[in-house]
């Protein structure tokens, strides 16, 4: 048949009878929107209250004093009617304490996490990998309070007696103990992210290098790692932001003394530990002491937000590179 027959009548297509479904669609969509709104609204609410309360704090204590002051001793009012000095609200010792502990943690976790990622993705047999990867994930699932008492009850005394035997004075709560254990805590984060990044370097790159007569380790050092560096950097930033925001370990192992020091053997305190200290027990919601917790919270929020944004940017840009 050369031409198409258009004369034979055919059944009309049923295109109008979908009214029934529209109602359902609408309800489903409304529920979904509501659910996602809850999360968004809570976030916005938290940020707004942080900003608002922090603003009230800065009405009493100038921001410059907060950001650049080197004395931290929020007055501990015993009675509400007690007349006393406002206390000192210089956050510098808290910031340096936070950075010191996070730095120690990163020094521990970066090489260990990265090396294990390289081993897992490049050398390990499939069987070993199938065993170790879940084990690492369990490590990531341990509640931080457990790490915390491990740091306080096991590692800190060990460091102390170890220090004594070589004539070093290690305080019973130290930045080192907290940093070491925090490092352990973020190893799984670094290794599993880096493992993903290393695995996403295309096999074609490795084939090209091996095909030119490069050895396995030359290939890793000269092709795989350079390609993976941006992604690894992103992973490290995420880990750093996790370390800066970590609370339980530092509360339990680093102490509450706001020392301005770079000595890892001394007790230091961090932003998060101070927030806990400020807000545990009965509160007076008007005192500078309580309000300072919001200012600290805001500071922490801004720092980790920036780190996260930068890290995600880097990771995303890296992923685009091979798409």
């Amino acid at each position, binding site marked *: 048949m050369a031409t198409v027959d258009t004369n034979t009548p055919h059944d009309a297509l049923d295109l109008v009878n979908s009214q029934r479904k529209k109602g359902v669609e609408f309800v489903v969509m409304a529920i979904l929107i509501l659910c996602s709104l809850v999360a968004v609204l809570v976030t916005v609410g938290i940020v707004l209250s942080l900003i608002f309360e922090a603003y009230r704090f800065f009405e009493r204590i100038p921001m410059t004093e907060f950001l650049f002051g080197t004395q931290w001793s929020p007055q501990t009012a015993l009675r509400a009617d007690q007349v006393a000095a406002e206390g000192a609200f210089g956050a510098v010792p808290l910031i340096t304490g936070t950075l010191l502990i996070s730095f120690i943690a990163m020094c521990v976790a970066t090489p260990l996490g990265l090396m294990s990622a390289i081993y897992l993705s490049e050398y390990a047999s499939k069987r070993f990998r199938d065993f170790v990867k879940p084990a690492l994930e369990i490590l990531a699932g341990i509640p931080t309070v457990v790490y915390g008492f491990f740091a306080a009850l096991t590692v800190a005394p060990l460091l102390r007696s170890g220090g004594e035997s070589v004539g070093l004075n290690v305080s019973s709560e130290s930045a080192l103990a907290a940093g070491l254990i925090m490092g352990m805590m973020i190893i799984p984060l670094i290794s599993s992210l880096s493992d993903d990044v290393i695995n996403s370097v295309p096999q074609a*790159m490795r084939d090209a290098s091996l095909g030119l*007569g490069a050895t396995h380790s*030359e290939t890793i050092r000269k092709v795989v790692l*350079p390609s993976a560096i941006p992604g690894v950097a992103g992973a490290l930033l995420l880990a750093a932001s996790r370390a800066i925001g970590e609370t339980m370990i530092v509360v339990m192992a680093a102490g509450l003394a706001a020392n301005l020091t770079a000595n890892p053997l001394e007790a230091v305190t961090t932003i998060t530990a101070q927030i806990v200290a400020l807000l545990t027990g009965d509160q007076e919601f008007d005192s500078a002491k309580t309000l300072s917790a919001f200012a600290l919270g805001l500071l922490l929020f801004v720092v980790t937000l920036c780190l996260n944004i930068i890290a995600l940017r880097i990771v995303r840009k890296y992923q685009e590179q091979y798409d």
Partner: protein
Amino acid sequence: MSKTAIITAKDVDVFYGDKQALDKIALDIPEYKVTSLIGPSGCGKSTFLRCINRMNDLVPIARVEGDIRIAGQDIYAPEVDVVALRAQVGMVFQKPNPFPKSIYENVAYGPKIHGLAKGKTEMDELVQWALEKAGLWNEVKDRLDQPGTGLSGGQQQRLCIARTIAVKPKVVLMDEPCSALDPIATAIIEELIDELRQNFTIVIVTHSMQQAARVSQRTAFFHLGTLVETGPTKNIFTSPEDERTQNYITGRIG
């Protein structure tokens, strides 16, 4: 022909796990000629090619049996260093895969690893030589420091060829080097292959009968893991002895 054969394969079996991919392959590949491997998809062309520089070692489940010699030397002998072998037997892959490094660094990568150039000027000369041989020099000489990934597909493939020959291998293996390229880029590379045969022995896998006819002097036809027929390209395409070859080149199987 076997007098000048640089690669001789005898009784080569390859298994992936339990599955046999190649069965008793015996093939001689002459020096300074282009030999093309043709055959329907899945017949084991790539597998055979990858035996020649032992890239199959990288596939955990692959097992190679039999005897493959290059210039008389058993390349699967226990004392053979795979790394040294791959420096002698280069490979160009189906999809252009330049490193995310500069054009210069791409070409210099192999020579650096093998310490082929002493000092900067020697390396510069080697890079220029390889790029010239690959017919890419004029297009990139002003932007050697730019990323190799920024070139067009055809240029990238020529960069990969330059990168391979910069190591000065004896044999260059090419697995469907033009399958990701347009006809013009393909023509350029075919011309290049013809020139390269002055200095290198070339083995090329291709799905294009015309390409095999244009670039190669000898052709081997694979079918279902066996080597059906091999001979001068002209004979294979004009008077094949086996019916399966006949059917394949006339487009009846494949």
